[in-house]
Each structure stands twice: as C-alpha cells, then as structure tokens.
C-alpha cells in the first residue's frame, strides 16, 4: 500500500482520502452505537450524541493512520 496520502480513484472518480476514511468511520460508529444500545451500555453515557462524534473522530484517526493515509 502506498504509505503517502493520495487521492483514491474509483474508475475516473477521484475521492479525497479523508472522505473515504470519514465515511467508513461513520459506518463503524453506527455499528458500535447499535451494539451499545442493544446491550444497554449507552445508559452509562451522559450525552450519547457527543460520544458518537468522539467515536467517529477516533475511528477516522485510526483508519487514517493504519489503513487509508490521510
């Protein structure tokens, strides 16, 4: 994998890496949120929407650091 940040090409469509990393991060956060809701662990958070945003940022950084260079 190219270790340098670069645009991702899907056929002739060029996409910024942050967009892809962000989209994947949102999907992962949605899955995490559903699991937390299902096992009633979300009741321990005082403000779940802020936790959602925080998880999205964390996943974006992880994906951007290890999988899609941003």
């Amino acid at each position, binding site marked *: 994998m190219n270790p340098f940040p670069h645009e991702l090409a899907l*056929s002739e*469509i060029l996409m910024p890496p942050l967009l892809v990393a962000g989209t994947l991060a949102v999907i992962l956060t949605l899955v995490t949120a559903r699991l*937390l809701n299902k096992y009633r662990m979300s*009741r321990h958070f005082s403000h*779940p929407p802020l936790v*959602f945003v925080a998880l999205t940022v964390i996943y974006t950084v992880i994906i951007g650091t290890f999988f899609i260079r941003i």
Partner: protein
Amino acid sequence: MKGQLLQAQTKFGKLLDAAESDTQEVREMRRYWRLYKQQTTQLTAVIGSSAQSLAELTASNTPHLATRLDPFLAELDKRFAGIGGMLTGQAPGRQPEDIELAPDTAGLRALSQFQRAAVVVFHDRLKQLDQLTRTLFETTRDASGFGEAEAVPPRTAFPALQWPDPDRMLAVTRVMLTLWLAFLAWIYVDSIPGGTSMVTMACVYGMIMASIPMVTLRTIFKPLMAGVVFGSLIYMLVLPHLSGFLSLGTLLFVTTFGLCYFLSDPKQALAKTFALAMFVSIASIDNQQVYSFMVVATNVLMFPVLFSFLAVTAYFPVNLRQEKSFLRLLDRYFRSCADLLSGMDRDKQRPGTRFERMRKAFHIREVSSIPTKLAGWAKFLDVKVLPGTDAKHVQALLPRLQDLAGRTRELVEVRGSLHNQYLIDELGDEALNWRRGLQEAFMNLGSAPADPQQETYRTRLDGLMERLEARIRQTLDRSTEERFSREDGEQLYRLLGAYRGVSESLVGYTAAAGAIDWDPWHEERF
C-alpha cells in the same frame, strides 16, 4: 377510542394544512375550516367533561334533574347527522332546533350544596354542548358551501401579539442550523460533493425533517437512496437512447404514472415523493442534454454529507429521540398547568399587565396543544427499547391529559369570573391549600410522570375536597342574600365543580401513568 379520536384530530390538522395549499376550494374557505377544527376540539373536550359529570352524578346517587335530556340528546344526534351529511356533500335537510334545558328547581332545592354544585355544572355542560353543536353546524354549513358565507372573510383586527410556540422555534432553529452547517461545509471544505446544490438540498431536507421531527433519519434514508438509485438508472441507461419529444414525453409519462400508481398507498407517500424528486433532480432534462457519470456520483456522494448535517441537528440543540421529546412535552404541560394555577390568586381588582396576559395566554395554549402534539409523538414511539411500556398504555394517557387540560382551563375561567369578594375571602385558606397541593403535584409530575405513591394523591385530594366543600357549605348556609346574588351562588357551585373536576382528572391521569414503567424512558441511548 379517545386516543384514536385525538390522533384523528391531529391527522385532520395536517390534512387541512396540505389541503389549504393544493385545493382552491379549501383555500377560499380556510377560515371556516380552521374554525371547524377549533370547534371540534372544543366539542370533544366538552363531551368528555359532560360524560364525566354524568358519571360523577351517578356515582354519588345524585339525580341529574334534566327533565328534557332524551329529546336534547335526540336533537344532538340529528345535528351530528346533518354535519356528517354536509361533509359528504349532502345539503342539510333541517336547521338546529331550540331545546329548553332548565333543571327541575324543586328537585334542586332538595339537594345538598355539593349535589347542587354537581347538577349546576352538569347543566352548564349541556348548555355548552347545545351552543357548540349549533355553532359547529353553522360553520360546517358555511365551509361546505351550503351557507351564504363569504370566501375568506376579511380580518377586522390584527392578531394579538403572543409568545412564540417553543416547538415552532425549535423547528426554525433546526432548519437554520442545517443551512449554516451546509454553508460552512461548502465554504471551508474544498470540492465538497454537490457544491451549491448541497446547500439547497440541505435547506429542503432540513425543512422536511423539521416538519416531521418524530420521524427518524433511518426511516427516510432507504426511500431516499432508492429514489437516487432509480433516478441514476434512468439517467444512465434510458435517457441516452432517447431523442425527440415523443420518446422523452413517453418516458416522463410512464415514469410519473408508474411511480404514482405503484406507490399510491398513503404509507408509501414518502417513497413516492423521493422517487419523483430524485428522478427530476438527477435526470436534469434540458434543451442541451449532456450525460456524465459524475452527475450520478455527485448525487450519491452528496446525500451522506447531507445526512450527517441532519443527524447533528437531530441531537443539537435538543435531543429529538421520541421518548425524550415525549418527556419534554409532558414536563412543559405540567409546568404550564402549575403556572395557570399560580396565577389564580392575583388580585382581580388590579387589571393584569400585558406581560401577565401574554403569559397566561401562552400557558393556556400550551396545555391545549400539547396533548395533540403528544399524540403525534406517541405514534412513533419505539416501545422495543422501552421495556415495561405498552403502546396501549401510552395511548390511554392522551385523553386523560386532554381532559385535565380542559378542566384546568375551566377552573381558571370560572375563578376569573367570580367577582364577589365576600365569597372569595370566605373560601380563604381551604382554596389556597387545595391549589398549592395541586401545584406541588403538577411540579412533581413534570419531572416524574408517574408518582409511585399514586394512592396518596387520591387520599390527599379527597381530604382537601371534603374540607373545601364543608367550607363552601358553611359559607352558603350562614350568608344572607344581601351578601351575594343567586348568580354568585351558581358561580360558587361552578367553582366547586371545577375544583373537583381538576382533582378527579389528575387522579385519573396518575392511575393511567402508573401502568407505564418510566425508568427506561430516562435512560440515555444513541
């Protein structure tokens, strides 16, 4: 059934809003249709309180003394039949007739003070029924075109200044926040998908979500993306092969007819709207038609960005989860009830300031409108995440709240019309204790919708009512006619009946709320 009636009234309001914009006949007569809606809501409240009054008379073995009750009820049936006929396009065959409703005075004298109060209140409600059904008949006649009403009669005065509705302000804030997020993203994020179209769409979808806040984003995501895929397939696979008006016109007709025919079920209205909108937006039919996959890709990538803005506004500034919104509306409802009661001890000799009048009007509007809003939210409650909650129990709460609202408004109105200072002074501490007890109960219910000690409400309120009735009985028995007139005496009976009505409604509400486990409602979830 009362819950279904409340939901039907909510649905009627939304249908009227839609009909005013797309049906010319309704638009011309919109003032009368608005009056019709207002009068049916009032009539529902009066029918409920009349039924409760009759039930209270029966429970206390008090005769209703309405000598012509059966002919009166028959006349009401005929009026309702006439109203129903006019709504289906049939001309009214008869006009409402007058029915005498005076109670049997000899029987009234034989009753105790409390029983007289209950009978007087019941007869008042029958008179209200008579007046309301007559007015509703005339309004329906005018709105349906069988009367001689003018189309949109001119306003004679400017509407009074009033406090804005908090829910409308929240909707406006939500739309503005969505628009600002879209603008800032367009300005600061380079090459954001959609560009200025994304800002336009953000405003449109922000307004759609603000008008139906109880619908979640998940509900609209699938029909919207299905519409995008449908429009994209037409754009990529069909349009490039067309030339000339005949082929294009055929495509437009077949697509529009097919979507409207196959998605004609009211439950599929959202899917139909999005499919039509995306077809028009993505096809972008123009005189000089250019086909590029970038159009499809841009539209597909634009919507996740749009939905992220809408997701932010679903939680900021206020969490719009259904159960949280339900609890917030309940809190506002009980705080408004408490505020209306606190304004009752104001000195009637001193005219209220403009601020006080606006505040009272605001709280009356709140208690009148919140049960209808709760009916809208209750339909979308996800009971799967609320263990211990049954949708039927939630529906059973709504008519109780509407009844309590009607009784509270009636109490404030009756207390406001009692001007005899001697009677007001004689009621003294008992009325004050009762009112404070109710205010405390309302404030507690705002934060905890069901009191685990609901039996204490019944016991406390019964005790307060007994002392109040005894006080009123003493006052009326020892007072001479120079102190107060017959009308003042009847007002006092109405006041006693109104106090009792609010107490009974509150006890009825706490019994219904006790069937729901409210702890999961307060839990935080994504």
